[in-house]
């Protein structure tokens, strides 16, 4: 094109002038209608093209804010931070020369004059038009659906409306208010979590006889249902809603004559309908059930108008997933820019993996399979809420699809095997449960998958892209690879596989794979631990001088503080400047910048007199009180200057610090055991107190929790802890490396039928070995996962002393135990140390920005702005 022009212009025109002319005259205008995830992705992919400078993009969004990540909408509840969800800030559009016009809808397209009209009656001309209007929630025509309290779940504004309404109906009421979600699909279950987070009792109502009907079979739906119900989400299947009850506002839903539920809010999440009105008004070819028909170049029936994302009907289907939407954006970009060979593939992978309310759910390829195509292997464990299914071709050579519920850690590998038709083990069940014998899984190394295999489907990044960025490019670590390829930046589901690929590629180049802690130290935690110990380094500043560079940061400072504590039992009073705020003030910072106070209540045993002291202190300082999950009492709302006064009173009454603020031993939870319980086998409370007192103040790479149960009924939930003891006939069974939290893990058996003394000996060795070798902020469960050889190796180290370290580990632990002192007592007895507990250096005033509001009989901080 440029060559053609060049031949026809008079020779007197200089080249620069030509460029200038072309810039203004020949600059093609692209208008993108819809600033959602796919519309944004179109822009992002477009500006990454070399000759994108010859185009001017204008993008319209009808919402008030720039495109945001709708897939993670329910995260809005955790932080209420709309900005955190943004795909890119407004400035990004400016920097790339894209005009972003928010809050303005397109009302008409004039194809003959190539113009559009907006809701403000403005006109814009286009050369190419890209429709990325997405979809709207489908609202079924049910009698009463217009009532107050009925919402859809799609935008941040929808969520804000729900939040405000939920507050209104819960105000001043003590009972839990019920709310329903209509639709048990992906989005419906996400909405149920949102409803639960608002403090309402969620009820999911689904027309089909199973949850997530497009992804799950009946049995996996049952497993998911049981799991969700155990978490407090009520599920009603096979229910057709006849009527929404209530006058004005919703009070219930009626399914049949005698079948109804009382709910005061309803979220409709019954599927999507493409936002295809514009296609209709300008007579583009439409699908019979909606959607704008596109070909494999994403062109509509008008070749200058493209449609991408959930508005586009491709192969007679609307694809309600992000990854195909992004692929469509890529195709449209390529077509417009002139790379006409890039087209949409015939088969679109609809595999999905997600975490629904903390439960892994994945489905890939053909999740359900007719018998004529192959056979299925199913694994189900009801006690663990696990379900796995694979569908295999009749000849047993190909994986055709499958379902995972409860644990989707094998998804990436199975998905790759399916996508690339990789060979599978002769006995296909090895893919599900691992082969018998060597204990390895049924699939080979991550490096076996072909280079063309797509690893990150959101960003269309192949294994080859990732590996070559290291072997042939200049990437040297995971961060470089992510920055260069954008892999993992979409849904993040491929991260474990990308990490493995990066590490394997680095190893193949003979490079050491090393996780250094931050830009200031080129070492990992274990190396620093050894360096500080061997060189007898005295403080953080000396560590930085000897082994680091720069001035440190919020990552290396607390990490090194923790190492000093683990080596010398040094309290945070010695180097307050390098402690996390919690450790610096020996209390837990809360939402409004005030602190909470937790005295140690070893084993959860507390006397009436101690209870009275805590009550009196809480009253005197007007503190909110709550029982913690670790069997103690938390006092909230203390200001910095009050902390020493509060602790003076608590210490005088015999309390000591509970270290609730530290990466350190928190509590050893106990059940009442044989002293009171008619089933108790041993004295679990006594042993829990002994152990908690032994390890109190012990600092570690992450927090440590323990539990002691008096019998196998396990009322202390010891297997949900970093270490747990369960009384059995003949002694204690010792379990290690469990936790609750975001990724719950049951602790695994380390040794059986131990007497008290041996149990403590093994615990000493286990804990010290963990403290020495774990990475920063790695709890015992993921530490064990990464430990080569796993629990068998740990048994050899701890029980059989395979490293010859046992005595040293025990001695080190005993040294730490002997050096324990209560850091709060240390602080209040030392006038120098107590100086830091003051809001202002130059005034005795306190923070006047604090506002509390009443809540039930107590108080709480005023909500975040």
């Amino acid at each position, binding site marked *: 094109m440029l060559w053609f022009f060049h031949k026809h212009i008079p020779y007197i025109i200089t080249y620069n002038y030509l460029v200038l002319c072309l810039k203004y005259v020949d600059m093609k205008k692209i208008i993108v209608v819809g600033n959602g995830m796919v519309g944004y992705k179109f822009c992002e992919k477009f500006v990454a093209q070399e000759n994108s400078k010859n185009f001017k993009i204008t993008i319209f969004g009808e919402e008030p804010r720039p495109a945001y990540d709708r897939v993670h909408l329910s995260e809005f509840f955790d932080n209420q931070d709309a900005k955190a969800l943004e795909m890119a800030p407004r400035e990004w559009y400016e920097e790339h020369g894209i005009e972003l016009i928010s809050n303005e809808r397109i009302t008409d397209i004039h194809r003959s004059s190539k113009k559009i009209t907006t809701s403000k009656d403005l006109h814009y001309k286009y050369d190419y038009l890209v429709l990325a209007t997405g979809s709207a929630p489908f609202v079924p025509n049910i009698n009463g659906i217009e009532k107050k309290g009925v919402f859809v779940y799609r935008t941040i504004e929808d969520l804000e409306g729900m939040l405000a309404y939920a507050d209104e109906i819960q105000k001043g009421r003590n009972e839990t208010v019920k709310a329903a979600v209509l639709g048990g699909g992906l989005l419906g279950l996400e909405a149920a979590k949102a409803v639960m987070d608002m403090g309402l009792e969620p009820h999911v109502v689904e027309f089909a006889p199973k949850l997530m009907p497009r992804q799950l079979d009946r049995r996996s739906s049952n497993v998911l249902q049981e799991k969700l119900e155990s978490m407090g989400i009520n599920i009603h299947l096979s229910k057709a809603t006849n009527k929404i009850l209530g006058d004005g506002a919703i009070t219930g839903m009626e399914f049949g004559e005698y079948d109804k539920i009382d709910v005061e809010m309803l979220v409709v999440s019954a599927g999507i309908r493409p936002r295809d009105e514009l296609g209709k008004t300008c007579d583009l070819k439409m699908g019979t059930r909606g959607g704008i028909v596109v070909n494999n170049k994403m062109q509509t029936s008008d070749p200058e108008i493209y449609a991408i994302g959930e508005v586009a009907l491709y192969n007679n289907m609307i694809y309600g997933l992000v990854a195909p939407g992004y692929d469509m954006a890529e195709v449209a970009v390529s077509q417009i820019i002139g790379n006409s060979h890039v087209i949409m593939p015939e088969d679109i992978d609809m595999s999905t993996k997600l975490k629904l309310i903390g439960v892994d759910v994945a489905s890939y390829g053909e999740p359900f399979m007719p018998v004529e195509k192959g056979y299925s292997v199913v694994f189900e464990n009801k006690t663990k809420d696990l379900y796995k299914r694979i569908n295999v071709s009749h000849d047993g050579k190909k994986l055709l699809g499958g379902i995972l519920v409860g644990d989707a850690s094998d998804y990436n590998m199975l998905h790759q095997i399916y996508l690339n038709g990789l060979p599978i083990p002769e006995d296909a069940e090895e893919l599900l449960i691992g082969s018998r014998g060597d204990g390895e899984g049924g699939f080979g190394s991550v490096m076996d998958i072909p280079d063309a295999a797509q690893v990150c489907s959101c960003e269309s990044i192949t294994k080859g892209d990732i590996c070559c960025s290291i072997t042939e490019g200049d990437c040297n670590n995971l961060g470089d690879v992510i920055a260069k390829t954008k892999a993992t930046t979409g849904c993040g589901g491929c991260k474990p596989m990308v990490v493995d690929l990066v590490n394997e590629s680095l190893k193949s180049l003979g490079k050491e794979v090393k996780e250094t802690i931050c830009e200031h130290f080129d070492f990992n935690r274990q190396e620093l631990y050894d360096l500080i110990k061997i060189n007898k380094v005295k403080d953080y500043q000396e560590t930085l001088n000897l082994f680091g560079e*720069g001035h440190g*940061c919020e990552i290396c400072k607390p990490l090194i503080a923790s190492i000093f504590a683990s080596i010398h039992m040094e309290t945070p009073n010695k180097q307050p*400047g*390098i402690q996390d705020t919690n450790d610096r003030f020996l209390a837990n*910072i809360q*939402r409004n910048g005030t602190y909470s106070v937790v005295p140690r209540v070893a084993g959860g045993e507390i006397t009436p007199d101690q209870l009275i002291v805590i009550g009196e202190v809480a009253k005197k300082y007007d503190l909110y009180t709550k029982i913690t999950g670790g069997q103690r009492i938390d006092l909230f709302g203390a200001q910095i200057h009050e902390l020493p006064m509060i602790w003076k009173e608590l210490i005088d009454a015999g309390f000591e610090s509970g270290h609730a603020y530290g990466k350190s031993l928190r509590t050893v939870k106990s059940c009442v055991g044989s002293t009171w319980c008619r089933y108790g086998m041993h004295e679990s409370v006594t042993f829990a107190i002994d152990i908690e007192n032994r390890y109190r103040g012990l600092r570690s790479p992450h927090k440590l929790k323990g539990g002691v149960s008096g019998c196998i009924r396990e009322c202390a939930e010891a297997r949900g802890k970093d270490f747990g003891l369960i009384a059995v006939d003949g002694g204690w069974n010792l379990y290690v490396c469990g936790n609750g939290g975001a990724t719950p893990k049951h602790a695994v058996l380390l040794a059986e039928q131990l007497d008290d003394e041996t149990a403590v000996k093994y615990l000493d060795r286990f804990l010290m070995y963990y403290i020495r070798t774990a990475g920063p902020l790695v709890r015992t469960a993921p530490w064990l996962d990464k430990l080569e050889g796993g629990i068998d190796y740990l048994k050899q180290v701890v029980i059989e002393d395979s490293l010859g370290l046992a005595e040293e580990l025990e001695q080190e632990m005993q040294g730490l135990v002997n050096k324990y002192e209560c850091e709060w007592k240390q602080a209040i007895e030392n006038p120098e140390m107590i100086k830091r507990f003051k809001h*202002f250096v130059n*005034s005795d005033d306190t*923070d006047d*920005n604090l506002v509390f509001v009443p809540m039930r009989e107590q108080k709480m901080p005023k909500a975040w702005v």
Partner: protein
Amino acid sequence: MQDILSKYQTVLEADVTTWFEVGQVSDFLENSGACIKYKDKQIAVYNFTRTGKWYACQNMCPHKMENVLALGMIGDKDDIPKVACPMHKKNFSLEDGSNLGGEDYKIATYPVKIEGGNVYIGFSD
């Protein structure tokens, strides 16, 4: 709430009309931060002992409007002196108050001078 933020505006050394004495050098923990009060303002003051430099900024983190920046850990990122908010670890440059994570938050900074062992913060009001 926005009006609380609006009282914090960056002051350049050239615009200082008042050098306000906030204490002695020894009142400020080494390589760490502390908070001082000037009129109705809360100002975080940082003592970078390693380089002998001092910085000051508003105490309020613009992310959640809490008066906590003085409690944050200090350090550097790519040689820019910074503070990390203790609440959600938002990082701010102490040179120009910009957010080092590329987010849209900005804090006001103030000049600091040390004279005769005393610490002074510069204000223009």
